[in-house]
């Protein structure tokens, strides 16, 4: 259903003739045959007006009539367009950078040459690496990172999940000015919590992050028994990229494309590679640090028949370890899992989903291989079977959370609602979206409407976080707290908007607990900085306002963020 404002704009901006054409187009759509559908894709692989290339899609799906030659209303952007990739250094895999308290690391943001899925492309890199350097620092250290921008776009670095000094949070216009080309900014990153974090730009994430600007920050605990025993540790940075037979599809220049659903990729990557392989001994326990850096895709990571134990997430370990069949990881989330490979042979680590074909009105199984683990015949030494089979309780986490249990039952201090407003979309898109509103899935696991999604830009789509009590939306929301306050926030993801969608909600600079989903209490709590909110669901968060400054709350689907879905709140430090 369109919101009132949108209906008004449509009546102002669209002629009756356009609407009639749109209705007729839908009529044609329902009569189309598969043969007709394929014939409608003649523009695939061809350069369209302004340098756009049509987004890849299932050729058996008919094109919405009137959209055969349509392109986004913004211009296309490709880094180094028209330049020879050979001019740029070839990026290399991420390097491990252990740092001690007070150490300094220089990071250059520059253009690099990479080959993905057989296509040589100009992309971005931190220190010419993909992902960026794996920074490791001990808990409670402060490291210094000097960032120099050598790309044509202004940039920053946001230290995702880290409760650091506000001035180094990397939000342009809030905590710093964006770093222009040729300029530098020095971040002092204090790391008070053990765990896996990550860093990325907070300027046009849909472009810069997608082009390779991300890296992990591993904060180690002084406790040698912080995690259970494992034979080794692996960092898995999960990503996808939208490509056709010429390489990456252009991004929007003045605003993101794919503003409705976010930019789903069709090429899956682990640590920037499409064929990431590991080997393991029989019985080997591997600790995986999973980070999802995709613009929009939530992964459901399966590990074949291997046993998987979930240990930790964004900002802490869980209250207790727990067996899981898969790991559901939304954009910007992190999970730590221990996996035992017991059976010799190949174990496929995959994204295993039930995708949706809206045109056929059905779910269908879809599996993308992320990585293959070759498990040998030799037994891993020493055996950690007994320890692995034991689910540990993290009493220090439980005791920490105990301090907050008195707040669990309190009435929400704030209530947010998510929705979306659109304007000036092609009538056939508006009509087809309205016709397909009888069922909206809780999660979008795939881009089931690639043309409509591609053509929706952040100039036409506004995603909204609305304060239900004041009616204020997005940047008009002005929440203020004193340091030490414990705040309960209820967020409802309305299923009644023009295009409901799941949202990974990220809170900067603080930590929170997901107390409940739809009134069902979480039984195994963990401190988070990002949590996915499915369509139709209500999520209760308990946020500890522990860190003074002006901080952001936003959806971490990069295109939704740029389409307005954000606001800031202030935590006063109480000092005169």
């Amino acid at each position, binding site marked *: 259903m369109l919101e009132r404002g949108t209906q008004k704009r449509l009546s102002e901006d669209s002629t009756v003739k356009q609407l009639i054409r749109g209705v007729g187009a839908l009529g044609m*759509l329902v009569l189309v045959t598969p043969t007709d559908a394929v014939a409608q894709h003649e523009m695939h692989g061809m350069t369209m007006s302004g340098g756009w290339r049509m987004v890849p899609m299932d050729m058996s799906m008919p094109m919405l009539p009137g959209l055969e030659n349509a392109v986004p209303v913004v211009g296309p952007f490709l880094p180094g367009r028209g330049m020879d990739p050979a001019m740029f250094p070839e990026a290399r895999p991420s390097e491990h950078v252990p740092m001690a308290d007070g150490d300094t690391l220089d990071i250059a943001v520059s253009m690099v040459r990479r080959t993905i899925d057989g296509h040589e492309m100009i992309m971005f890199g931190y220190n010419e690496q993909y992902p960026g350097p794996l920074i490791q620092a001990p808990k409670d250290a402060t490291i210094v990172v000097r960032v120099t921008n050598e790309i044509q776009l202004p940039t920053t670095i946001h230290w995702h999940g880290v409760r650091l000094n506000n001035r180094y949070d990397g939000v342009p216009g809030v905590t710093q000015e964006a770093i222009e080309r040729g300029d530098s900014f020095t971040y002092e990153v204090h790391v008070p919590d053990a765990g896996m974090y990550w860093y990325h730009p907070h300027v046009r994430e849909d472009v810069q992050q997608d082009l390779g600007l991300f890296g992990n920050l591993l904060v180690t605990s002084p406790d040698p028994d912080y995690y259970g025993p494992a034979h080794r540790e692996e960092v898995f940075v999960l990503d996808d990229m939208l490509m056709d037979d010429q390489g990456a599809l252009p991004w929007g220049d003045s605003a993101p494309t794919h503003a409705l659903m976010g930019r789903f990729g069709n090429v899956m990557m682990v640590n920037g590679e499409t064929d990431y392989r590991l080997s393991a001994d029989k019985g080997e326990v591997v600790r995986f640090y999973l980070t999802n850096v995709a613009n929009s895709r939530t992964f459901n990571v399966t590990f074949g028949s291997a046993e998987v134990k*979930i240990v930790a997430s964004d900002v802490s370990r869980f209250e207790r370890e727990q067996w*899981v069949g898969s790991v*559901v990881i939304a954009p910007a989330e992190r999970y730590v899992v221990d996996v035992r490979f017991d059976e010799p042979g190949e174990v496929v680590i995959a994204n295993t989903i039930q995708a949706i074909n809206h045109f056929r*009105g*059905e779910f269908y*199984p879809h599996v993308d291989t992320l990585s293959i683990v070759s498990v040998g015949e030799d037994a891993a030494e020493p055996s950690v079977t007994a320890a692995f089979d034991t689910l540990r309780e993290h009493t220090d986490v439980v005791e920490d959370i105990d301090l907050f249990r008195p707040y669990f039952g309190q009435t929400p201090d704030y209530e947010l609602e998510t929705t979306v407003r659109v304007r000036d979309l092609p009538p056939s898109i508006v009509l087809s979206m309205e*016709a*397909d509103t009888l069922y909206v899935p809780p999660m979008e696991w795939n881009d089931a409407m690639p043309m409509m999604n591609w053509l929706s830009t952040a100039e036409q789509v506004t995603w909204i976080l609305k304060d239900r009590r004041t009616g204020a939306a997005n940047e008009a929301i002005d929440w203020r707290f004193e340091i030490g306050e414990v705040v309960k926030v209820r967020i409802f993801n309305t299923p009644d908007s023009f295009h409901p969608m799941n949202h990974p909600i990220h809170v900067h600079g603080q930590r929170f607990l997901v107390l409940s989903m739809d009134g069902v209490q979480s039984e195994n709590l963990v401190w988070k900085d990002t949590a996915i909110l499915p*369509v139709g669901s209500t999520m209760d968060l308990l946020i500890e306002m522990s860190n003074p400054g002006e901080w952001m709350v936003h959806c971490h689907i990069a295109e939704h963020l740029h389409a307005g879905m954000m606001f800031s709140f202030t935590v006063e430090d109480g000092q005169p």
Partner: protein
Amino acid sequence: MHPILMLGALLGSLTPAFPVMAGPALSAREVLPSRELAVASFCIVPTGPEYYAFDLFATRNIPGTGLAIGRAEVAVSGASPFSIALGPDGSYVYDIHISLERMKPPGQGRLVAWVTTPEIDRIVRMGALDENLRSSGTVGWNKFIVVITLEREDDPTAATWSGPVVFRGMSRSGMMHTMVGHGALQQENCAAYGYGN
């Protein structure tokens, strides 16, 4: 007649599950078949996303169910460490809670709840309804049908039902519409066109 009652009578006459019966006058709460009313009046599980709850409709195959209404609520288990729970193939896994109202437990036999796929090629027995006409279980399919049958006895080992179907209802996902062959606003079952998964 009060306008609301007139509207209720009209809607009731068009909705098999909520017939307007002869006899004592019914209040608006009893007549109006709105979803909001049904939830407010007897929802036993104030959890789960309201959007994915769905109604169960009486077949009136057994006496005493002419005015009966049913409801199925789904929710992500609190045991899931994620905001959503998935099975090995990526299907949603929900706790499902069944409740019936406006009827009495049958004098003979037991009401048993089942969950089945739209093709009815896989059936899972949820369990017998209790004396309050409630039952809970788990479902691991994206599209499914809840079936409540009247069984001669409660047999936990039964692979499928043998008694008459008393209630049935389809998950919200059953409302997915295909645009192949017929339009989204038409009423025919999509399965008639070969698209029903």
